[in-house]
């Protein structure tokens, strides 16, 4: 059949179902709200399972309160969702067992993580909590890169690592801060052990 002879059908364009992008609303612990696409959320195993379990429709998203993420602040959550939106649709990486772990930091991620170490710490913590594998990998790689070419003293400063003496002092201070009654019991227990007693009671 030629094109000219084909039957003409009037199409009501409004009736064609247009695939609408599904968004979810999240709220940080300092009450900042974010709209995040369904595809971006798939980067986070925790959030993906959460929204699946909630079974929200588009109307629910608009009518119900935003999903609260209570232990992440707005500044950190903004970075997390920016990362998820940029990497939406990408496959979740699987550990190939390589030593050292092979992780490339793309330009976008490098710019996103051009932040102070306090915020980087929060970002890593959030990536771990929300189970965003690749964000955790790149942020950990950034922290690992800080060790390159550093002397022991520099490593101590960069990673805030106490010496043995400082660890001992902190342990003693923690013991001293203990409940005095608990400390008495502990001391008595140690005393009885020294005297060769098998049982405390």
């Amino acid at each position, binding site marked *: 059949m030629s094109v000219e002879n084909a039957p003409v059908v009037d199409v009501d364009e409004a009736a064609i179902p247009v695939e609408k992008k599904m968004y979810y609303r999240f709220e940080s612990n300092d009450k900042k709200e974010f709209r995040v696409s369904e595809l971006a959320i798939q980067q986070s195993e925790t959030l993906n399972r959460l929204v699946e379990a909630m079974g929200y429709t588009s109307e629910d998203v608009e009518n119900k309160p935003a999903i609260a993420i209570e232990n992440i602040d707005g500044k950190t959550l903004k970075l997390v969702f920016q990362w998820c939106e940029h990497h939406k649709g990408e496959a979740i990486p699987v550990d190939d067992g390589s030593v050292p772990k092979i992780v490339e930091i793309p330009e976008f991620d490098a710019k996103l993580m051009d932040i102070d170490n306090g915020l980087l710490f929060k970002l890593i913590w959030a990536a771990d909590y929300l189970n965003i594998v690749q964000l955790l990998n790149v942020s950990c790689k950034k*922290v690992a890169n800080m060790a390159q070419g550093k002397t022991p003293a520099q490593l101590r400063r960069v990673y805030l690592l106490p010496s043995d003496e400082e660890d001992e002092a902190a342990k003693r201070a923690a013991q001293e801060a203990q409940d005095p009654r608990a400390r008495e019991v502990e001391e008595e227990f140690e005393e009885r052990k020294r005297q060769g007693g098998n049982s405390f009671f």
Partner: protein
Amino acid sequence: MSFPSLRLPLVVLSIIFNCMRPEEIIRFSFLSKRCYTLTKTLKKKPKRGLDIMFCSYASIEFLDSFSTRFEVSEFSDIPEDAQLEFLVIGGTLPCFVSMNRKRDGMDLYCQYDRFDGLTALLKYIIDFYELPIENISIGADKHTKDPKRALDWVFSQQEALNECYFDCDRSSDEELQYLFDRIGNRVEKFLGVLMTSNVGENFRYTFSNEDETERRFTFSYELTRYDGTIASVLLGNRSFCMCVWPDFDGKLYPVQELEE
């Protein structure tokens, strides 16, 4: 600004350590007992072992990351402009350390013999990673007894080596004889010897194949000379070896075996 690494969950710390190169993790482990325990528990084992050099310099490299190494020297070798830090490694090896920017590695300076420093550091790394020494390069550049000491020490720790390179520039026939006797069949893949005029022209050594096992290699390049003679070229880390067919047992190049 500092990064509060020890406040991170252990799973996250484990990812950070596993993004580091083996020698960076070792450097981290030097810092305190807590760092040692954390890194030793959370690190993954590299796939390949260690490469030791004991010749004009003494060094340890991880075969997984060739570009960096620990180099052990004595106090007398400390450069004038070195920025040093004092460290006691594993509670047994007091030394001064500095970073070597050119080689992206760490230089350690020990008070006494560099051999004692090297073996103390080796024991520490071997215990930390449970890795074998795979390759060793030895030479008598600093002392004629150095190759013997190194080889004796390695074979007191483990049965065999993959590769052994020996620069006998300053070794006598007797020393060479001792080393070959010591090596016997304990070098499994490659034995490279740099012969020089110091070794007598008539020096000969025949390696016995006591267990008569066949030596096999899985990858080689083949060359054919104009007269049809075939040679297999096997690549080592820094050198190659060429086997010309037929071999010492008269076996021809195994064409059929390869075609199967």
